[in-house]
């Protein structure tokens, strides 16, 4: 029997407090094996290995794609009408073609990096940097501090 | 010679079949069916709640009741009922709705010959219209050998008075297997085989009739409605 060959944990070990999750797992495996043994002579290979192209769906509602049957019209039940509207919006949202963009992707990326991204990428980047890089950046920052004063000048030139 | 030929044609043809779907409102499917002057109403209910004593966990319980035109069912009707039940049980896919009951009620309105076959066909139509799950549909044909030794398919009551033998066959729609054989009287085995062939041929007409009427009912064009209502008044 292959099950006997497999190393098994003793009950004493399984009863220990930190082994509870393993205990459940072992119990489930045992159950599965038992049920497999129980039906093994009734299941043939075809039943085990068949993958059928048929899905049985006993509901007419799903087959015909029927709508929900709770409806209200012209303000009879505002609560239901609100839900109907939400559903309609959701449905339209799925089928509606993409709206023309007011801001192009390129513009978006530029603005994003100009405003927040440098800060965000720096803080996250810090987490993954090695000690060497860390020191390098420190010196860079010191350099930047010096540059900061010079930074304003070209901008004024532009304008 | 010509005259006898035409008679032959009439004798191996079924009488005119008519049907009206759902004349009853409170059951799940019903049909008023007539072959010639023989008229039967059949109704089905199902799947419905079953009594615990007849409950089965593997298949649905089939109940079949046959009511004569007047009075309570006697031995003759009970035999007919049992025969119908046997055929229905063969055709019904009973394992689809376990723990439930399928009920088929057949009410004889007028018996002018071939009532056995007529009741079976009505039961089949009512099951088709009631949407019960079936393995196949079936058709029953009655045939007699009269005193001159002629075969008459679907005879009138008057034609059966001096019959030598009578036969009722039921066939399934898929393989054409025999579902029911009822014989009475004396006949030769060759005659039996001939009559089986004749009845099998006639059953094709009945299956065609089922199909066209189900089609009409689903199409429901105006002229179909008016025709069926006219038929109903005639039958009444």
């Amino acid at each position: 029997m292959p099950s006997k060959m497999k190393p098994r944990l003793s009950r004493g070990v399984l009863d220990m407090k930190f082994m509870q999750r393993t205990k459940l797992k072992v119990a489930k495996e045992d159950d599965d094996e038992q049920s497999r043994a129980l039906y093994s002579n009734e299941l043939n290979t075809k039943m085990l290995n068949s993958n059928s192209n048929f899905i049985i769906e006993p509901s007419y509602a799903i087959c015909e794609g029927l709508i929900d049957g709770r409806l209200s019209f012209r303000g009879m039940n505002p609560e239901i009408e609100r839900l109907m509207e939400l559903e309609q919006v959701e449905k339209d949202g799925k089928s509606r073609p993409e709206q023309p963009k007011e801001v192009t992707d390129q513009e978006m990326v530029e603005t994003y990096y100009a405003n927040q991204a440098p800060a965000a990428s720096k803080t996250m980047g810090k987490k993954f940097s090695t000690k060497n890089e860390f020191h390098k950046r420190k010196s860079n920052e010191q350099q930047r501090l010096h540059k900061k004063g010079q930074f304003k000048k070209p901008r004024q030139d532009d304008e | 010679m010509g005259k006898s030929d035409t008679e032959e044609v009439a004798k191996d043809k079924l009488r005119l079949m008519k049907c009206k779907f759902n004349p009853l409102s409170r059951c799940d499917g019903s049909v008023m069916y007539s072959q010639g002057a023989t008229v039967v109403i059949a109704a089905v209910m199902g799947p419905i709640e079953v009594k615990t004593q007849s409950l089965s966990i593997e298949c649905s319980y089939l109940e079949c009741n046959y009511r004569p035109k007047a009075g309570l069912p006697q031995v003759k009707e009970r035999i007919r009922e049992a025969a119908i039940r046997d055929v229905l049980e063969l055709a019904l896919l009973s394992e689809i709705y376990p723990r439930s009951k399928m009920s088929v009620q057949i009410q004889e309105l007028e018996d002018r010959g071939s009532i056995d076959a007529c009741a079976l066909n009505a039961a089949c139509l009512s099951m088709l219209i009631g949407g019960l799950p079936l393995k196949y549909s079936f058709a029953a044909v009655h045939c007699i050998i009269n005193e001159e030794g002629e075969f008459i398919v679907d005879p009138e009551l008057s034609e059966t008075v001096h019959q030598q033998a009578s036969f009722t066959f039921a066939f399934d729609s898929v393989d054409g297997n025999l579902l029911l054989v009822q014989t009475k009287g004396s006949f030769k085995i060759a005659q039996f085989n001939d009559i089986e062939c004749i009845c099998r041929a006639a059953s094709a007409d009945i299956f065609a009739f089922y199909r066209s009427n189900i089609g009409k009912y689903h199409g429901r064009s105006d002229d179909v409605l008016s025709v069926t209502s006219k038929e109903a008044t005639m039958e009444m």
Partner: protein
Amino acid sequence: MSSALNIVMPGERITAVEDVAKGKRIILGPGLRRVNDTVVASKAGPLKHREPNTFWVDNYQRRYVPARGDLIIGIIKAKSGDVYRVDIGSADSASISYLAFEAATKKNRPDLNPGDLLYARVLNASPDIEPELVCVNSNGKRGKLGLLQDGFFFKCSLNLGRLLLRENCPALKALTEKLPYEIAVGVNGRIWVKAHSAAETVGLANAILSLEQAGHSEIDKVCDNLGDVLQA
């Protein structure tokens, strides 16, 4: 005509469906069953197809057979223990737990009495166990489900219920033009309507029942006359 509708009879092998199934997965609806690798009809009626891969047999069946996910109208029959017994028109009565309502707790039970109407979803349906209903969605919200108060309730054929619930059904639109109303249509062949006055409600019910005799093809024609039925 019958060839155009493509009527199938019980026991018929449906090779058209089998051919499609060779290429992709298909959904077999009511009236079709699989026998080994063949598809066989078990009911009589026109074979229907919906894109992309759903097939079923339409049928004038009048008995409701519960199926998972259906939205139905049930009538509370009794309270028993932790559940209400609900009549949904099927072979077995259904059950709905006290806790299957919005904001219901063990302390705070919904106040329902025998005879009340529920618009509910079938949670579980198997031939071997009784059907189970719920009145909340997976988020625990009521949505459109729940108790139907006032109004008028009547039964109809399963087909009429399904006819009304097809997308873009002209009947409900035609009625909307006549009067404001709300409606609950259960696929178990039960309808509940409510309008501003009793007379309007009854007129509405009559108008809907007059569709019972119409087939799918004639529905437009009948809808034009619905206004007359309402006034009568």
